[in-house]
């Protein structure tokens, strides 16, 4: 368990660090053209993302990430 805790902390620190380090240039409202494109969204296809979460949840042991666990099903 000790190894796992260390691993988790390391990854967490790395992620937060990279987030802070990422040099951010102010992006004005009218400059957000690229970011507003469908293909730049976190989840361009809502139904596909929902189904992926469901399929991987039923066929693998892992779940979670960037959302709270949704509904349950008898598939796991």
């Amino acid at each position, binding site marked *: 368990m000790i190894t796992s805790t260390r691993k988790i902390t390391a990854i967490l620190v790395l992620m937060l660090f990279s987030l802070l380090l990422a040099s951010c240039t102010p992006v*004005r*409202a*009218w*400059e*957000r*053209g690229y970011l*507003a*494109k*469908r293909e730049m969204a976190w989840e361009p296809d809502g139904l596909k993302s929902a189904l992926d979460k469901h399929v991987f949840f039923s066929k693998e042991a892992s779940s979670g990430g960037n959302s709270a666990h949704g509904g349950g099903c008898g598939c796991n």
Partner: protein
Amino acid sequence: MDAALRSFPFQAMGSFCEIRFLEPSRIEARANARKMLAEVNRLEQKYSRYNPASFLSEINAMAGNNLGTKLDTETRTIFNHALSCYEQSDGLFDITAGVLRRIWDFSSGKVPSQTEVDRLLSHIGFHKLQFSKSRLILPAGMEIDFGGIVKEYAADSVARLGRSLGIECGLVNLGGDFAVIGPLPVNRPWPIGIIHPEGDRNLMARLMLEQGGLASSGDYERCFVHQGKRYSHILNPKTGWPCDGLRAVSVSADTCTVAGSIATIAMLKPEQQGIALLEELGVDHTYMTCDEQISGRGFITDSSAEKIADQIPS
């Protein structure tokens, strides 16, 4: 490439409007144009003073009622911007000055008496508006008019909508107020011509607009001459009389809204102060004085040789 440049002209907000954008698919273009037109109509229906069912008319109808009107976020932020314009113009840009329309009739050339003007002045003044939580209490006899803000805001809003619809190259024109959806490929500006106030035989100036907005203020049609003096349709809310400032101003800024605010404020000031303000703010601008001198910064004036104002080093 030319076939893909779509143009959708329409009539709105009392003027000729046009949305231009690149879109090879005609079906896609029509669907997007329809959505953008819907946004123009939405704002017009909501804030038009000619529409008795508009939200603005609702606000004005409640003048003198202490209950006030609950403002939604969009209206509240418009009032905030109007306050900002009021403060930055030392009270010259005042959205409560619309009542002056009642005594000035530019089409018939009627000039009011000083007593008429004084009586109305008591009903003008942004500072007289009372805001409590998200309600506006409008004192009796006062009237709100979003002229100088809503058309420019609509251009920006439609441009943002265009971008969210995936349009990369486009230009919104609402009666001479422009907002860029995206530059022409690749990163080339849109050429825009500013009509000469004396008529459309020449252009007063041209601007290459790559991003942001362009707004113009000027007395093209609605000025009149009375006893040898030229009066513009822009009325000074502090005196109740027309302004004696610049003849026409065009400003380009990061948003059409800000460009319009600056242009309007510059027009409300006496000529020299207006010019000083435009230069102080550092935005690209062009103006025409009463004796038809055209100058500015960042615009191309149509007279051949010199006339491109030297860029003031910043």
